């Protein structure tokens, strides 16, 4: 053990410390950062992170940038809202047991993920991105016009659709916080595990060279479809936590703006590393909450109502600096720290979507 520590580079040391500190702070939760920060912002970071991790999984290991993940987490929240709530306001309010609702939400969302995967699996690159975008907008339109299931006002009362172990999530935000934390960790390790299985390795092969994989006998569309199903499954978990936290879901929760926000989160963290999901979510959530307090904002021709401009500028700078996001920038900085070799290449380790054509040629 001692020798291993000595071999650590400064960069690895920093990483170890940051991860350890983050985990300690996360485990302490409200005790470390205060109630409101933990229960509002960090819980959001957890579900945004889970949703973004599904996007990153598909992008990094499947070569598919899916803009449908927002629709998937929304569908999951709509399903549990319809299935579990009671009362007379909106939706079907079937009044099922919360556990039934959870299972239904996950199963239906995953099934839709498989379905979309089947339709989109023969497309790749930027085409795939646009098909999934169209699906996302379709979901938004669907819940807006089908008043039986939601309508524009959406469904409220989701805070009471938690299993009784958790209790009403407004009354017990701390429990929801830990649900989010544990779910985040589980999702992270599940993805890490999945990419080492034969399925995951085949998926990465398909990402790099679908034609060669097809000629080796792998069913390319099937692998992509299954990956989409898994992505929808992960997103459905985010949708449950999202619904419990806000107690409300409506078509506005999954509109084009949200689609772009989730993409921003994934890209800010890193489109090529799962960890980036939660890092991007943290940066985004904190920015959205605090950006308007930055005094500088007033002086650059941006009034405090215009903090979307600030978010856009920050996003633009990150993408221009490094397509690998903050983790990509960190990789680049690591190159200059003592103990490592030459600076690692700026280019991400994964081929850009669509330009996979080079590999296939």
């Amino acid at each position: 053990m001692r020798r291993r520590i000595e071999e650590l580079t400064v960069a690895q040391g920093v990483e170890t410390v940051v991860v350890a500190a983050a985990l300690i702070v996360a485990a302490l939760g409200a005790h470390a950062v205060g109630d409101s920060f933990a229960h509002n912002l960090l819980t959001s970071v957890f579900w945004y992170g889970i949703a973004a991790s599904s996007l990153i999984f598909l992008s990094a290991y499947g070569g598919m940038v899916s803009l449908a993940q927002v629709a998937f987490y929304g569908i999951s929240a709509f399903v549990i809202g319809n299935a579990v709530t009671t009362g007379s306001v909106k939706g079907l309010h079937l009044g099922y047991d919360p556990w039934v609702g959870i299972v239904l939400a996950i199963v239906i969302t995953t099934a839709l993920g498989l379905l979309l995967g089947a339709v989109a699996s023969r497309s790749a690159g930027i085409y795939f991105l646009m098909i999934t975008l169209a699906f996302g907008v379709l979901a938004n339109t669907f819940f807006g016009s089908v008043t039986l299931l939601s309508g524009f006002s959406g469904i409220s009362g989701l805070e009471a659709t938690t299993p009784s172990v958790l209790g009403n999530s407004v009354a017990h935000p701390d429990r929801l916080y830990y649900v989010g934390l544990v779910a985040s960790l589980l999702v992270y390790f599940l993805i890490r595990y999945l990419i080492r299985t034969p399925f995951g390795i085949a998926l990465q092969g398909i990402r790099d060279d679908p034609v060669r994989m097809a000629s080796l006998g792998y069913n390319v569309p099937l692998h992509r479809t299954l990956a989409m199903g898994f992505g929808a499954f992960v997103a459905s978990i985010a949708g449950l936590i999202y619904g419990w936290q806000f107690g409300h879901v409506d078509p506005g929760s999954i509109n084009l703006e949200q689609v772009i926000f989730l993409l921003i989160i994934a890209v800010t963290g890193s489109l090529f590393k799962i960890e980036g999901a939660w890092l991007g979510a943290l940066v985004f959530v904190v920015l959205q909450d605090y950006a308007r307090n930055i005094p500088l904002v007033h002086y650059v021709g941006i009034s405090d109502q215009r903090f979307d401009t600030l978010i856009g500028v920050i996003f633009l700078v990150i993408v221009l600096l490094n397509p690998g996001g903050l983790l990509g920038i960190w990789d680049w900085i690591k190159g200059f720290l003592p103990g490592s070799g030459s600076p690692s290449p700026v280019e991400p380790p994964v081929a850009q979507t669509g330009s996979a054509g080079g590999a296939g040629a």
Partner: protein
Amino acid sequence: MVPTALPRPAVRRLSAYDVLRRLPLVLTLLGLLVAGIYILFVTTPLPLSGNGSWRTTTFGSAIDDPVDFAKTFLDAITFAGLLFVVASGFTLIFGLMRAVNMAHGSLFLLGGYIAFDLQQYFTNAGGFGLEQVDAWEWFVPAIVAAVAVAGVGLLMQQLFLRWTQGQELRQALITIAVSIILADQMIQHWPLQDSLAWPSFIGPNNFAHIGGVEYAWSRLFILGVAIVIGIALYLWLQRTRTGMVIRAGVDDRNMVSALGVNIQRTFAIAFVVGSALAGFGGAMGGAFSSLAPGVDGQWLLNSLVVVIIGGMGSLGGAAAGAFLYAFVFTFSAAYLPTSGLDCCTEYSPIFTFVLLIAVLALRPLGLFGRPA
């Protein structure tokens, strides 16, 4: 490389898998057939009082009410004209550069706003008359808007996209960031709903009479402009040197470069033309409907749907996509059953997406799309 099917064996039996694969085609054709028969022969007009049934639509069948059928058809192709103008710019940029310009809707809206401000200036803050808008008071703003937006597009291309060439995803992300910034800044300057005025000669009170159908000139004007632009683009791409380079570049960028053509200059030209079309489309769209925060997103989506259906990078595809999209949108709004008060025409946007999914299930690259 986009996944393609394995080479097909010369002799094949119809296996269950083949049947399954043909299912989308069969279903689509069947759906079209049923919809066609329904619209042409089956439906009856909704009585002014009382509820209808699955057979009742607003106008009844095309046989009963050919005038409304013709108007619906004209609505579809004129709307398709506007869609084509905007989407052709989008598809031109994509075809050559493989760059999805997610700021295309923002450029559209910006063009509309610039034309609006200029027209307000020319007409003295909108004298609110019906007859005072001269032709130049629409054309000059529209052309200035096209030029100005072309400048913005060129700036974006030179600053951000030139050196990220070939990184499709990164370019899409960059243009998303630009669109967020543009949208937010446009709200600052144009917070309310604005609308341009058509020149009086096609203005709101002038109607054409085509075989007994009274139809608005302004919509026919849009179609005319779209046809002119379509022909001009076709000739430009087919007959000029720049056009040939662009077509060659669509097929093989590296080879064109290797032949000593300044591909960067060609990219810039494509971007200028594509952005100008968005800006000009904005001036037309601003007079056709209105300009407001959120319209940028609508038109990005419109352009996306059109080119996904038609196939990205293909001019003919943009025309076909625009027509199909407008056709399905217009006809589903006009010919879905209206039984009772609560059904069903408001579901017409969903049919647009059904069209999209049907096309993609049949041809993953769109109707006229080709692998990169």
